């Protein structure tokens, strides 16, 4: 019983892994933005990245 459940669970894990690899899933933090205007190519400064206000690191040890 436990083995069957584990086999089922393992099969699901492997299937998810297969989909993740095939579809190229990633753990990176990425934001999807729709309908970016074509004018960005001519005026890159017109686009505001949501990460532009990110707190930047300011120095080593």
């Amino acid at each position: 019983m436990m083995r069957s459940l584990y086999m089922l669970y393992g099969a699901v894990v492997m299937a998810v892994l297969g989909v993740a690899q095939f579809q190229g899933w990633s753990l990176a933090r990425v934001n999807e933005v729709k309908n970016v205007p074509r004018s960005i190519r001519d005026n890159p400064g017109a686009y505001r990245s949501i990460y532009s206000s990110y707190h930047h690191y300011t120095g080593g040890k």
Partner: protein
Amino acid sequence: MKALNCPGCGAALTVRSFGNAVTIVCESCHSILDAKDPNLQILQRFKVATDEVRPLIPLGTRGKMRGTDYEVIGFQRRTIEVDGLPYSWHEYVLFNPYKGFRYLTEYNGHWNDVSILKALPEVHPYGFAPTVRYLGESYRHFQTSKAATSFVLGEFPWQVRVGEAAVVSDYVSPPRVLSSEQAGNEVTWSMGEYITGKDIWKSFRLSGNPPDAVGVYENQPSPLSSETKNIWVAFAGFLLLLVVMMIGFDMIARDEQVFTGAYRYDSNQRGEASFVTDEFDLRGHTSSVEVKTTTDLNNRWIYLNYALINEDTGKAFDFGREVSYYHGYDSDGSWTEGGQNDSVAVPSVPAGRYYLRVEPEGDPGYGVTYYTITVKRDVPQYSFYGLALLALLIPAALLTWRSLSFEHLRWAESDHPPIKWGNDE
């Protein structure tokens, strides 16, 4: 069945074992009678005023054990003392005129089907826990104690007495237990096999439910031991599949460089720093895109706001990457922090024509930073293999832990308890 009268109280006695019994105990006055004597000589009388025990399987009940009909003809309670505390279990004598005697024992809802051995086991008395071997199977010593008979009822194939004591040693190999009973110079070996109360109730067609089993018994089979083994076998199979998948996806991944460009960022220069790259094609099925940044940073940082924009649909994948590299020397020696390069995998990017919008940021006064951006299509992501391994490992580890806890509970009651960590006081 033969009807007689007790010479002690005159009550009717029922003899069920066709002259095979050695002693009979009167159910009315609890006189122990010599069954071999035509006059049923009284051998012993004992008082049961306060501790009379009612057998869970009444005397005279018939049932099938291992395909053979048996009748319950005798019952006794035996008691041992451990650390000053008395522990009692019950034994039932079963009789079949063709097969002879066998026994059932019950302790806290745990039952054993017991038969006398016809051959002697091989005893290995040395080591941390002595062992015995019987029919190729090894049994580990569990407990040795002095057991005294404290209550008897019915017929017995030996000279039973209340108060008689024997040294009992149990050796276990679940679901079996080998027991030696030594009284004087006589040693009797028996083998018990664990059986559930439910099966006993079914075999003897008893009404109601058996008492619940309390705790873990010495030869109670662990419900998890075989499952644990099976699950680790399955885990090994999945691990192999995981490796095969890793090799397979590595082989079919495009891992194709679609863009590279070298850039310069001057943090002292005012004005718009953002720019867009040339266009590039992402081909194949929806898959990852790796954006790699290589810099010449030296005790500095640079932050890059990236947007991977699909020229046709206007859909963008917006992300930011900080690259920083610091190094130095202090009282602990030399140190480094961060690195000059960074890479990120943008997930599930459909095929299409794309470009990057890049906006670098840095502290004013840092001056010029040279960096290269490289874009690759369909790069294998190994972090998911680690997560999958963890997901497969957790249930197997939990089950193993539960199985070990079961064994811990079993051996905690033995003469060889597991080592206790920490102080209980």
